[in-house]
């Protein structure tokens, strides 16, 4: 109950600003679309209707149709499911590995710590998209590759913050007291350290969602991420871009949807950070 009340308080703060409220509304819309995609969509996203290519927006097709006559609105709705799935799985993976490595770095010997930190440096020193290109060239494009690449790229991000947070907590008097009372190392980590650093890490996670959406859409745009016929936002932009001379509607609609989503999540993430802890550094 206390956690729920705290969450409600944070959300109230987020919605207190215009930017935060806008972001939160967009996030809610996209999550609802992603979860209820089969209900929200008006058509089967893969149903072809070649005679009806590049139809302009109408009552039957709210946002018009693409180069194969598929309903754009329904494809966008199903695209949100893919974007959310990729974002959530890769961020949960990165959050878990990053937190574990970060806590290990803070508790293990200096040598192990420097090995972990160098590992983080090496990963962050790779321009992540270029790393993705090299891996895709070997394994071929697929959604799971995208998830793994994004997870690896984001791990140092969480790991560094987790380590820094643990270092400031490690010698806190209340942990000293626990230790004197005979609490084991694992008990201290699970019961005391994790709950204390989770808030910051979750804010970071929310700020990473638009980054992941961008990477996934970018790779799919290049044809190196989610494979057709799955309707990823990136593939929708790519489809529209290829047929730009036939109709500009598909590419504009798909790009706007993508921009709308990343903007909404960014605004929400920043408002959440301001509400929880303005000192958390954004990713850049």
């Amino acid at each position: 109950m206390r956690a729920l009340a705290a969450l409600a308080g944070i959300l109230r703060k987020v919605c207190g600003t215009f930017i935060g409220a806008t972001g939160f509304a967009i996030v809610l819309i996209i999550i609802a679309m992603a979860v209820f995609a089969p209900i929200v969509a008006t058509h089967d996203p893969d149903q072809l209707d070649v005679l009806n290519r590049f139809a302009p927006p109408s009552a039957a097709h709210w946002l018009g149709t693409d180069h194969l006559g598929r309903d754009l609105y329904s494809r966008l709705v199903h695209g949100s499911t893919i974007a959310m799935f990729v974002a959530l799985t890769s961020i949960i993976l990165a959050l878990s590995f990053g937190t574990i490595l970060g806590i290990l770095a803070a508790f293990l010997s200096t040598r192990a710590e420097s090995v972990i930190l160098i590992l983080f440096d090496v990963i962050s020193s790779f321009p992540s998209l270029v790393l993705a290109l090299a891996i895709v060239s070997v394994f071929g494009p697929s959604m799971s590759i995208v998830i793994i690449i994004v997870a690896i790229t984001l791990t140092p991000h969480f790991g560094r913050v987790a380590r820094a947070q643990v270092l400031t907590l490690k010698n806190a008097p209340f942990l000293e007291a626990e230790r004197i009372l005979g609490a084991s190392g694992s008990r201290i980590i699970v019961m005391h350290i994790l709950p204390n650093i989770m808030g910051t890490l979750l804010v970071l996670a929310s700020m990473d969602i638009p980054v992941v959406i961008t990477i996934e859409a970018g790779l799919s745009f290049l044809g190196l991420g989610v494979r057709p016929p799955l309707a990823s936002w990136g593939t929708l932009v790519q489809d529209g871009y290829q047929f730009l001379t036939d109709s500009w509607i598909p590419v504009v609609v798909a790009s706007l949807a993508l921009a709308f989503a990343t903007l909404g999540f960014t605004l929400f993430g920043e408002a959440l950070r301001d509400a929880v802890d303005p000192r958390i550094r954004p990713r850049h």
Partner: protein
Amino acid sequence: MLRYFFSRLVTTVLIVFGAMLLLFLLTAVVPGDPAVTLLGPQASPELVKRFVSEMGLDQPIHVRLWRFFANVLSGNLGVDVVSGRSVWSLVLNVLPDTLILTFSAILLAVVTGVPLGIYAATHRGSLLDNVLAFVSVAFIAVPSFVIAIFLLLIFSIWLDWLPVLGAGRSGDFWDAARRLILPTLSIAATWIGFIARLVRTSMLEVLNEPYIRTSRAYGLSERMVTYKYALKNACIPTIAVLGLGLGRLLGNAVFVEIVFARPGLGRLIYGAISERNFPVVQGAVLVVVVLFVLINLVVDLSYSALDPRIRRDGAGGSPV
């Protein structure tokens, strides 16, 4: 300073070696027969045979690793499996295009972002300050290839003001410059707002420092205080962020090169992936990584030269 320089140098070398190891391991962990997987099912038996001997795939792994490192360190990035040209010459051919695009984007972002940030900081709460606050977030959030597509659609297709694709005829400076405008703008758009916001925040922080109050009390003009004393210190975080963001910038350049069909490292890698030309991917990615790490090193060192506080702890790696 020397110690800091040395430890940064060691980290840099380690990172480049790590990258080389990873790129090498990719050939070792490919599923199935590496030659067939890397070249694709349509590859002719002769091509497969040449590829196997050139990449040394018939040798044990430690020999291959040794050969790969020895080759790369002596400047041999391998051979293009399709054309037989050296990967190094392919990379050198397009490297200037990517560098020009990246640096013109940084230049544009700094030249417009810094003054906007100063204005916002010295005119807090003004209309421009508020507009900037929103627009900067908006442009940071939107992927660069989406911005590129919109610019292309508006300025090249609807308004027909600027040429659509390519880098222009070689030697024709104005044509090349005109074709550089939209790609540069697509990359810089993200950064203008970001730099402006960063300069604004650090300016506001610096303007509250006691030494600024002192210089005002001494009767220095507001101009002198803002530009000579405040701006200098406010620039430090901007430089750091520019360095950190270069990886993203190079990544953005890849997409923008593809949208505008410009030659460059991004298009080279992308093309090589489509035609399953792994040596080219490997070599070009390595060049991008080395470039990125070197720029980061330079940024780090200039950062520590500007701000002596960073040198004091003497530790390499990223300041957490």
